[in-house]
């Protein structure tokens, strides 16, 4: 993966989201480090420069998301970069300085004959404080709307970050285009969230390793106990595994549905296992808002919770496998079948 980008941005992330400070509740976009992030053009990584983006490959974007996860960044990295990408894929002009989000919840949007739109966009991260929201309408077209044209129901995710539900009734769309699909947007957002989780698990592993070497009980560091070491090992396994999955998805921006579904499933399971083990290894201090662990484990819930039920994804993968000539080849081969319904 593009470790160059990670190295170059290390200082910015460390300054914006210092790793020695508690992870606080989040606020409106203007009160987060977003303005600095956008000044660097990071919100447009993965969008070609000749389309007003910041350039960079999909692998660069995955590296950026991993870094954001490692720092528990409280900005809509995935939503902004996916929204900008979808908009450009749909042939629409980008307004480089605008902040963008996308709905991650069940949404429905109708485009009327007069090009106005009505409907509900559910769970839009920072929905009320971004400039624009990009969504796929019921007819499959890509729509850009102004967030301030919506009636807002404010909400927060489990990590204390805004995720608002926006209702539009017959508002003028900023732009309407075609060229991408809800499915493509979902795949890209899920892949980027896998990268966020990988970054967060790396941070949780480092945090836990440090803590168990410092905390003394029964006259020795708790990391000297095999039972505690087992937690440390398990967390590192989950981190290595999720990173391997994220890096693998980053190899090719033509994301395959079967791969994304497998990655999403494994990541969601691993995140929970790691969160449980990390809290167990930390004891009570990990349950407080002053200690950084909660800032990561709460984000893991947010970053693995959307875009479909794991049980249904498992069923679809199983159904796909049942209709293939060989189960083993689904694991061993490069060619991927379509994910069956």
């Amino acid at each position, binding site marked *: 993966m593009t470790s160059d980008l990670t190295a170059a941005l290390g200082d910015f992330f460390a300054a914006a989201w210092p790793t020695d400070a508690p992870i606080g509740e989040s606020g409106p976009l203007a009160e987060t480090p977003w303005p600095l992030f956008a000044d660097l053009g990071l919100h447009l990584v993965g969008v070609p420069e000749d389309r007003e983006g910041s350039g960079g490959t999909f692998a660069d974007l995955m590296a950026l998301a991993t870094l954001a996860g490692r720092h528990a960044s409280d900005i809509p990295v995935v939503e902004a970069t996916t929204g900008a990408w979808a908009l450009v894929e749909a042939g629409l002009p980008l307004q480089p300085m605008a902040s963008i989000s996308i709905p991650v919840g069940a949404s429905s949007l109708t485009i009327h004959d007069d090009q106005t739109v009505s409907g509900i966009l559910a769970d839009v991260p920072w929905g009320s404080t971004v400039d624009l929201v990009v969504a796929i309408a019921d007819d499959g077209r890509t729509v850009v709307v102004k967030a301030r044209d919506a009636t807002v129901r404010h909400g927060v995710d489990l990590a204390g970050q805004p995720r608002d539900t926006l209702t539009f009734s017959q508002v003028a769309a900023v732009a309407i285009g075609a060229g991408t699909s809800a499915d493509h947007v979902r795949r890209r957002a899920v892949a980027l969230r896998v990268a966020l989780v990988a970054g967060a698990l790396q941070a949780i592993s480092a945090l836990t390793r440090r803590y168990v070497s410092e905390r003394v009980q029964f006259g020795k560091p708790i990391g000297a106990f095999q039972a505690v070491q*087992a937690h440390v*090992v398990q967390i590192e396994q989950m981190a290595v595994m999720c*990173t391997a999955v994220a890096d693998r998805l980053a190899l090719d921006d033509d994301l395959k549905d079967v791969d994304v579904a497998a990655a999403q499933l494994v990541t969601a399971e691993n995140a929970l296992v790691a969160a449980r083990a990390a809290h167990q290894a930390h004891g009570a201090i990990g349950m407080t808002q002053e200690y950084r662990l909660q800032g990561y484990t709460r984000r893991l819930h947010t970053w693995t919770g959307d875009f479909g039920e794991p049980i249904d994804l498992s069923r679809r993968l199983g159904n796909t496998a049942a209709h293939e000539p*060989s189960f083993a080849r689904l694991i061993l081969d490069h060619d991927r079948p379509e994910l069956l319904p």
Partner: protein
Amino acid sequence: MNLVPTTLTAEERALQADVRAYLDERLAPGTYPLGLGMAGAVDADFSRDLGSQGWIGMALPAEYGGGGRTAVERQIVVEELLTRGAPVGFHWTADRQSGLNIFHNGTEEQRRELLPGISRGELSFAIGMSEPDAGSDLAAVRSRAVLEDGTWRIDGTKIWTSNATTATHLLCLFRTSEGRHDGLTQFIVPQGTPGMTIAPIPFIDGTRHFCEVSFDGVRLPDSARLGAVGAGWGQNTSELALERGGVDRWMSMMPLLEHWARSADVRDSVPAQIDLGRILARLWVYRGMSLSIARLVDSGVFPVVEAALVKEMATQFEQESLSLVRRHYGRTPALTSDDPWEALLAQAILVGPSWTLRGGTTEILRTVISKGLIKR
């Protein structure tokens, strides 16, 4: 810790296609005894046929009769064999670890004598490490080799030696002095050596590959010694690394899964599809990690900690996927069933607990990983 993702090259995929085509014919369904991964049946004819294809000892240099190929290429061949539950028992250990050990640590004479036969699939190795009082604590090995008048005299007992009766050679770890780690030396003991007695220990499923090997005044020439006197621990550790890192650590269930996935039991059952999908997702990830490890091996690094990290998870997942498959069966499968798949499932249920013991237990692997993490 980081595993760099990788994909197969066009040449590697061509090899995969060749292996598939060959095995589809050589191992037509119903013509061979089904096995669970590396515990596949012992079939010397099959091993010789595979050797004549150039698919054993692939990673050994061509000048010693090997394939001069890569760990990734070996993995490709092994994946196809284990998917089919092939009878790999005769050549398995020699191909996976003994050949490489002899190449790295053997004398020129040992290489010339043994490596071509390994690559032809004619030689079969068993590993004599464990003893009654030396299991996880392998450095507690007590069987001795004492140099008397230029020959080594061996006394002691090895236990849990898989396939010792059918092996042509045993590669054993003996104590040559008191130093806990630097007092151990490896030896190659040919089958039939006077004073060596091999007694099968019936395994949980009634099979007889597990053995006890006693050495009573056995005499070995110094040319049977592998590597320097006192270097056995290090050689054995490198071997264990090869033993832990491979796809055999998550593929024991593969023939059963391959069969189950295509059956009406899954096609007609949503609950079964849910479990199969979960297994698919995780195996896809383990496969990617194994391939990354094989590429590391080819780059000259041996990722000991990474191999332990994957084995610890993957072997437990083998057991979990067995439980998932089993809960759709509806009755207790019989070992004696006429249906070979039912018998194989029954066998898996019986032998499954050994998957997290052999090659280093889950608990010991955790210690290896934990120490590795502290060092980094």
